[in-house]
């Protein structure tokens, strides 16, 4: 039986689509933990990033976060988060380790892109705004933030896609998500299940990427779209 047939068999199997471990359950697990992690990540770092960007103090912090973020393997973060939560008695079979690790992954791109976005605003524009009598918070809310929006959204997109990708590893720490198919498939040498999981995760990541690009385009202020 070749790989493709195995895949079709797995797809045709009714238990794939029904019951407590159905595809829909896995998809839902995968999505909610990803969305929650991204949102929490944004909420946690956005205010600080706004402040650092606005006061022009964020460049070094942003660079450091980029470099450190790249050097630390996401698998490592997940594993550490898991073992820590196990120590606290909340690890196995719960989504919390995955959630914590994914928050840690979502935060850096949002952080650095928000800072970069605000700092990319032409200083002359900011000076003109101040010169006209906008207060500090008005400059941030009316000038810097709207102009930083494309880069902020880019950061959120990168974060979200990365989170969707890494949520797959959740299966390695005894949690669900679409990664289950891959890990379980490896365990029982079921190529059909492995392929099914790989395709599901791959398509989900691509869908997230493409979908987000469309949102990004929609929220870019028109004046900036013409300029870039």
């Amino acid at each position, binding site marked *: 039986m070749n790989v493709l047939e195995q895949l079709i068999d797995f797809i045709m199997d009714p238990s794939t689509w029904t019951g407590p471990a159905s595809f829909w359950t896995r998809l839902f697990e995968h999505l909610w933990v990803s969305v929650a992690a991204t949102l929490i990540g944004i909420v946690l770092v956005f205010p600080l990033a706004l402040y650092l960007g606005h006061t022009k103090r964020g460049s070094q912090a942003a660079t450091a976060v980029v470099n450190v973020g790249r050097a630390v393997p996401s*698998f*490592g973060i997940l594993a550490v988060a898991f073992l820590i939560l196990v120590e606290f008695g909340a690890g*196995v079979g719960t989504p919390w380790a995955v959630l914590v690790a994914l928050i840690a992954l979502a935060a850096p791109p949002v952080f650095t892109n928000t800072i970069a976005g605000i700092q990319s605003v032409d200083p002359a524009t900011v000076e003109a705004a101040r010169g006209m009598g906008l207060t500090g918070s008005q400059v941030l809310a009316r000038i810097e933030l709207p102009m930083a929006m494309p880069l902020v959204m880019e950061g959120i997109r990168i974060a979200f896609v990365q989170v969707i990708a890494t949520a797959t590893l959740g299966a*390695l720490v005894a949690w669900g998500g679409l990664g289950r198919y891959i890990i379980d498939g490896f365990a029982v040498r079921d*190529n059909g299940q492995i392929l099914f*999981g790989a395709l599901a995760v*791959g398509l989900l990541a691509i869908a997230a990427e493409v979908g987000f690009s469309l949102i990004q385009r929609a929220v870019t202020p028109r004046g900036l779209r013409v300029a870039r």
Partner: protein
Amino acid sequence: MSVVFGQADQLLDWSWVERNIGQIVDRTWEHLTLTGISVALGLVISVLLAIVVLRWRWSYPPITGAAGLLYTIPSLALFALLVPFTGLSQTTAVIALTSYTLFILIRNIVAGIDGVPAYVKEAADGMGYTPRSRFWRIEVPLALPAIVAGVRIATVTTVGLVTVTAVIGLGGYGFFILRGLNTFFWTQLIVGVLLSVVLATILDLAFVALQAWLSPWSKRRAA
């Protein structure tokens, strides 16, 4: 699954490290070779693709689009896609890891060459460089720092991704992470994560130094 609190009070068990030093060296070698082969292979493919892009500009969107698509696929999924065909092997790991470097490398190579100011090229033409000599003597040296920056990002990213290959029986330091995870053994987990970070950092700094060495002109630029 039963929870076994191995050495809760002892995060790093040095005696384990001593006993397993041989294995740590082996895994270091594995981590380095997987990284090295993948980045090197990725660089060769990227240079070829970049040449195609520079010659036929219309090919840039489809080529980077395809590379971007590969880049988006989660690492575990890509391994999983390959395993039914290439098995739990180094080939699987290298194909996946290489494909992740392409997006980063192609974009940096093309951006580096494109980043050479038009007036510099015009001045070179004006002094009588042939298109070929201009490319090798002016454009490539000027683009080199950007290209090395790309190799740097690709390398550091790959070091991190190698850990995931533990699920297909390889992993370099990822092997320790996975084992630590499955046995709830902190020492192994910490050794795996820490060494991976250290390796990434060393390579990162090495490339920063290489970048600086390759572009002595950028150092003296006014701040």
